[in-house]
């Protein structure tokens, strides 16, 4: 599983990253996490509001910080 956190590196992106790591830990899942802060790359994925969460190349949320429960839910669906 491949996860991307999109955002220029503001506080919200950091929070989303932490929540994602927590969700993975809770589920006992293993995934590679990539932080994407390049604007062109973010825009190429169609995202206009950051932070955004991408699981296996699919944008699952943008413009808000998901809590670890929501992320866990999305991870199980992926």
């Amino acid at each position: 599983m491949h996860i991307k956190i999109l955002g220029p590196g503001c506080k919200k992106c950091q929070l989303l990253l932490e929540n994602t790591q927590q969700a993975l830990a809770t589920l006992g899942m293993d995934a590679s996490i990539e932080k994407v802060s390049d604007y062109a790359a973010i825009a190429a994925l169609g995202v206009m509001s950051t932070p955004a969460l991408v699981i296996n190349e699919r944008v699952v949320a943008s413009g808000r910080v998901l809590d670890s429960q929501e992320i866990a839910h999305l991870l199980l669906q992926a």
Partner: protein
Amino acid sequence: MDSFAWLNDQLLRMNWLSDLVRLLIEKVFGLDMASRLGGSLHFFIYDVIKIFILLSVLIFVISWVQSYFPPERTRRILGGMRGFRANLTGALLGTVTPFCSCSSIPLFIGFTSSGLPLAVTFSFLISSPLVDLASMILLASIFNWSIALAYVVVGIVLAVLGGSLIGRARMERYVEAFVTQHRALDLPVEQLTLADRLRYARQQVAEIIQRVWLYILIGVGIGAAIHNWIPAELISDLIGQNNWWSVPLATLVGVPMYADIFGTLPIAEALVAKGVGLGTVLAFMMAVTALSLPALIMLKKVVKAPLLALFFTIVVVGITLIGYLFNHFAYLLL
């Protein structure tokens, strides 16, 4: 109409709070309200509490409304429009779409690469930080409803005209090449439940309060100082009604400042109380919110100097004109 006035006084202006703080100053601290210390303490405590209460309630409600207008949706709405109607809609949607300077770049790329004209994108970019529902209600709370509505109307007019002028200038070649390299994907708008929206609204309140509390304290502190410590003559000599340079000076001082409208309102309130023209004060507030150094630096990453300069000039000139206009016609509003 009387019950509306009462609601306005108690809920928005919070006269009850002003009375409570007055009691605190007079009975507990034993200070005279007419004294400098008593007066500025009252201004500080009352304003800080009032702004924080209004801010929390407003951000909560507004974020909930905004969760219905993600930029993806705005882009889709704007994509089907042309000309003046597109500019006006862009400016209006700018008031309800959630905006933070850190996502202005992906937003700009997303709009431009999907084929929206520069005119519409800039109408949106001008109105988005300048006019929002929270600033309108706070203006109504500190001044009155006619001023709040006038502020919104001139803000929208500036956004529509500014965007149109930029469109006329045909500056597409001054957009950085990488912006239009990828055609933006059209993401489906997320389906959020009511619980999701409320959680988002709560997060926004916490996040915005964390970001702006210091600006508010500084703003109210400056306001309290202006209110009671700086002589009125000094202020009117510097930025009084009779000086032609008051409005441009207020605008230029405001431009590099990076603060929230919530921090500038108490300063505005104190300046108007000292007899500074309403237009001068509004020009300062608009300059602080619409343009800031960090925002311009961000924008520089996606547009080249000539376009950035045009955008900057149009907004500065527009704000200055609005300032003169308000100074001239303030008697109709106050």
